[in-house]
């Protein structure tokens, strides 16, 4: 017999995303809470798994084969060891919930692909995509070294930028945009940078001008 029900069924649907996460962490066996969690986040989890799979070199056509198991793996990761992972959630916004689930989905896919590749190695089988990777022309060490020196110069120039109120932030934005290839819109979703797209464009313009002058 149930001793105590902390939240009634009706209020479960009214919970904010981060509240739902917390309640699930508190009560790992509450079916109503987990039904709601499943209904609300299952689609997002699948989306994050798909994107992680594609980003890590997976073929979209093969995703159907893994989706169900990987989604289960995300849920398992959340609740295993008495819910250690879900209890570590500290966010207070909807975005923080998505970021948390996204990072778990990413780690699940990375683990699974690592496992699959290890199996393939053990079987002495080389996948075609890996073969293509090996066949790709490698940049010679001289080019790499030159690029590294350029980057060191860029870092120095940006760190010494007297016009900037926050040179470290600008340097990170520079690297996210020019090294990692994130668009301005994508960078604007990083809340800790606290910049709109127009603010980011201004930063990048200033950085560009500064580099043109310095380098």
């Amino acid at each position: 017999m149930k001793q105590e029900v902390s939240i009634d069924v009706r209020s479960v649907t009214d919970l904010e995303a981060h509240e739902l996460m917390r309640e699930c962490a508190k009560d790992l066996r509450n079916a109503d809470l987990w039904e709601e969690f499943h209904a609300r986040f299952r689609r997002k989890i699948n989306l994050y798994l798909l994107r992680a799979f594609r980003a890590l070199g997976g073929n979209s056509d093969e995703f159907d084969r893994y989706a169900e198991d990987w989604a289960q793996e995300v849920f398992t990761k959340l609740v295993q060891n008495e819910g250690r992972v879900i209890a570590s959630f500290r966010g207070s916004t909807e975005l923080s919930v998505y970021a948390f689930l996204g990072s778990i989905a990413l780690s699940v896919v990375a683990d699974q692909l690592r496992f699959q590749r290890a199996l393939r190695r053990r079987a002495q089988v080389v996948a075609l995509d890996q073969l293509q990777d090996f066949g790709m022309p490698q940049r010679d060490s001289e080019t790499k070294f030159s690029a590294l020196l350029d980057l060191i110069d860029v870092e120095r120039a940006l760190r010494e930028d007297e016009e900037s109120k926050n040179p470290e932030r600008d340097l990170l934005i520079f690297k996210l945009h020019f090294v990692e290839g994130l668009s301005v819109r994508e960078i604007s979703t990083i809340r800790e940078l606290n910049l709109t797209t127009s603010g980011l464009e201004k930063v990048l313009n200033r950085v560009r001008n500064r580099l043109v002058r310095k380098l």
Partner: protein
Amino acid sequence: MSGFLSAGLAEDERAYCQRHLIECEDCRGELALLVRILDEEVSPVELAILNRVETARPERHTVSVQPPGLYERFFQSITAGWKLAVVATTIILVVTATFILLPKNNISDISPQGAGSVRTLEARLSSQPYSQFVQTRTAPAVGNAPSGTDELKRLGANPFEMGRFYLLHNEFAKAIAQLEDAKKQEPNSVEISNDLGVAYMESALDDNLDKAVGQFKEALRLNPKYEPAVFNLALASERLGHFSEAEEDFSLYLQMDPDSGWANEVKSKLQLWKH
């Protein structure tokens, strides 16, 4: 990493993270990957894959701990060949029943236009099959708008899909906001320009009619043979009182589409004007 993304860090943690991300290529790469994974926009390809996965997914996995019943005993008693035949027949029946009986759960089914409902907007949306126009300015929402909206959000609908949904529920301000967003993302989409024009035109604000004309002309600049935009441009001209332009555009429309239900509406209108 997720804390850095969602502004969940204390001041000193943020500064530490920022410094670390500048130096550590691996963590920065992971952050970039996470940003891309969390992107709110869902591409049509992703949407199709997700729908496929959702459709294929069994609803629940239950484990039976009861002793074998009649069903199990029956299965144990028949030969392997018969088992195969029974399994195959069952699969065929289940698949057929699923297709016939189960409600579908995708965006086009939530959208009322997909359900073959009555058309309450005189204008023509992109990819809209013809249905008879019922003229009313106080048309009730076709379906349950708030719950449908939630469902669309849950399914990860993009601004274009959300905009069309609101439009078909006569929520024009919300439709315009969503479709403007969609237009920013895809400025060269003929369909978005057309539907945004419809949202402006049906919002019943006089100055929005000019905006509607602008959108229809933009759609026709992108594709001069886009029938819905010609149809809608003629309608907009009619509502602006520019009857000669409207007649010209309707005549042009009939050259492009002489036989459909839309064409019949145009013919009736032109006939009416002659009397």
